[in-house]
């Protein structure tokens, strides 16, 4: 359904002293998503997760330049096509209630989403009613303002915005941080449900545990590159290939709970070769010189 290969994003910015500089925030991202599956994208902040979502939706800032190959449903996903597909075929579930207009009643906002997806006003209104009912949101919620919502309600409203659209690809950007565990579980189950309806879901998160609960596959991003795409069960099986993924896995509390030493390189000072080379225990000369491309490996086990 969606395939991304070698995506690059470059920002042009000004520095202290007013000098211009170019920042390569995404070097080479690869990802593919099938209908009906949940693909989790994990990585530390700054690894390019959210930018990927923005790139797919064509909402990168103006000073960003994009390169690489994007395909959606078999056709190239040009920025023009993103523009026409967003809100209809591709939907975003935002991080928090902060992504709702603080001065607009939530019912109206969700309805607006439905209308943008192509429904008539009346249809949109019934869609909202149906969706709210589906997520056990009382009718009175429609007339509430975002600041009047509880955490769980807000989460369901945000999911609703994707549900009312019938979008085939749903991107959930960090839907879980700072939430009560019950709400996290509920939210994740909603996402899983969406995949069950036949949609492709990209779950962007830095919470590997949450990701592993519902994702079919997990893509690990590091400093703007995809270092590994693995099936969820590979994690529990320890079938991980890339040293960063392995380190990440070990850092989880239920495992060894050792943090990865060092820091992710900033886009201003990317290493010459492999981006993980400066922290990699198994770094080789080749890694220092050039960036190894993503390879398809046979399944182990």
């Amino acid at each position, binding site marked *: 359904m969606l395939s991304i290969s070698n995506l690059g994003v470059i920002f042009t910015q000004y*520095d202290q002293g007013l000098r211009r500089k170019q920042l390569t925030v995404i070097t080479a991202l690869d990802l593919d998503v099938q209908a009906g599956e949940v693909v989790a994208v994990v990585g530390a902040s700054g690894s390019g997760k959210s930018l990927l979502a923005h790139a797919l939706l064509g909402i990168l800032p*103006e000073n960003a330049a*994009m390169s*690489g*190959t994007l395909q959606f449903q078999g056709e190239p996903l040009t920025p023009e096509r993103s523009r026409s597909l967003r809100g209809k075929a591709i939907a975003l579930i935002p991080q928090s209630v902060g992504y709702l207009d603080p001065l607009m009643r939530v019912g109206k906002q969700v309805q607006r989403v439905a209308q943008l997806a192509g429904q008539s006003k009346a249809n949109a209104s019934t869609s909202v009613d149906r969706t709210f009912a589906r997520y056990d949101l009382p009718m009175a919620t429609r007339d509430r303002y975002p600041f009047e919502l509880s955490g769980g309600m807000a989460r369901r409203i945000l999911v609703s915005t994707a549900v009312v659209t019938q979008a085939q690809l749903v991107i959930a950007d960090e839907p879980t941080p700072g939430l009560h565990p019950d709400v996290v579980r509920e939210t994740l189950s909603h996402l899983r449900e969406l995949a069950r309806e036949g949609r492709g879901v990209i779950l962007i998160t830095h919470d590997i545990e949450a990701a592993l609960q519902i994702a079919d596959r997990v893509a690990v991003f590091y400093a703007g590159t995809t270092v590994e795409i693995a099936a969820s069960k590979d994690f529990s099986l320890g079938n991980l290939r890339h040293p960063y993924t392995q380190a990440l896995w070990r850092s989880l509390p239920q495992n060894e709970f050792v943090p990865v030493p060092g820091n992710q390189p900033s886009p201003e000072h990317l290493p010459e070769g492999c981006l993980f080379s400066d922290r990699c225990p198994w770094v080789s000369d080749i890694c220092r010189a050039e960036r190894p491309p993503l390879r398809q490996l046979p399944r182990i086990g």
Partner: protein
Amino acid sequence: MTITVNSPQKSPQKLWRIWRQNNRRQQTLGAIVLGTLFLLGIIVSPWFLGESGLSTVLTQRNQPPSLAHLFGTDWLGRDMLRRSLHGLSLSLRVGLLAASVSALIGTGLGLAAGTFGGWVDAVIIWIVDVFFSLPHLVLLILIAFAVGGGTKGVIIAVALTHWTSLARVIRAEVLQTNSSDYVHLSRHLGKSSLWIARHHMVPHIVPQLLVGLILLFPHAILHEAALSFIGIGLSPHLPAIGIILAESMRHLSTGYWWLGVMPGILLLLAVKAFDWLGENLRSLFDPKTSQG
């Protein structure tokens, strides 16, 4: 298939932007130098021009702008460019003096409010509120009238009315610095308030003050001109820009448009130069504002 999007070299507009981006630092410095030179030029111009051209030449009365008289001549045959430069120079000097005094007051009160806090702060804030509760021009007129008008009146009026915003900024800056770690440290080390003010506040406040001062100038000058225009400012015999513009009111219907238009443009340019200078200085001190 590879799509390259938003390629920076695409349109001339983008090229222009890149050129601007690349040269921003030089541009800022250039703007500061240019603005300063322009304003200095106006201020010192009377000493270079002398009194020549200010005498009445009855044969050359009411001449529209020409190469010989870029700004035309007035009803006494005086060259309007020279008169405007003389007037603007005077207005700038009066405005500068008034704005500087105002900046001093603003800094003093802002520092006092931020440093001493308590009732001092409350009183100063209240004074600022009272000042804000009156329309600026009404306050100016009142003060200028109360001190008897004239040059002295304008300077006092402008000085007494333009300090409020700067005082607020300085006060906020002091409060922010006050709550910072190194000030806490100094306090623990038993340093006096005055010592802290001198060693921690001043370095933070000087850039704010400089920018604030320069952004004060245009207001001060415009208000000086406005006061003179309505007849409560500089004495009518001084060739201040407000006076020249007020005089032009008496020759509107005869079609001598240049008497009002040309000096006004010069004033506008000077005010814009100050604005420009202030903005550029600010972006030099604080690159955040120059993003995008």
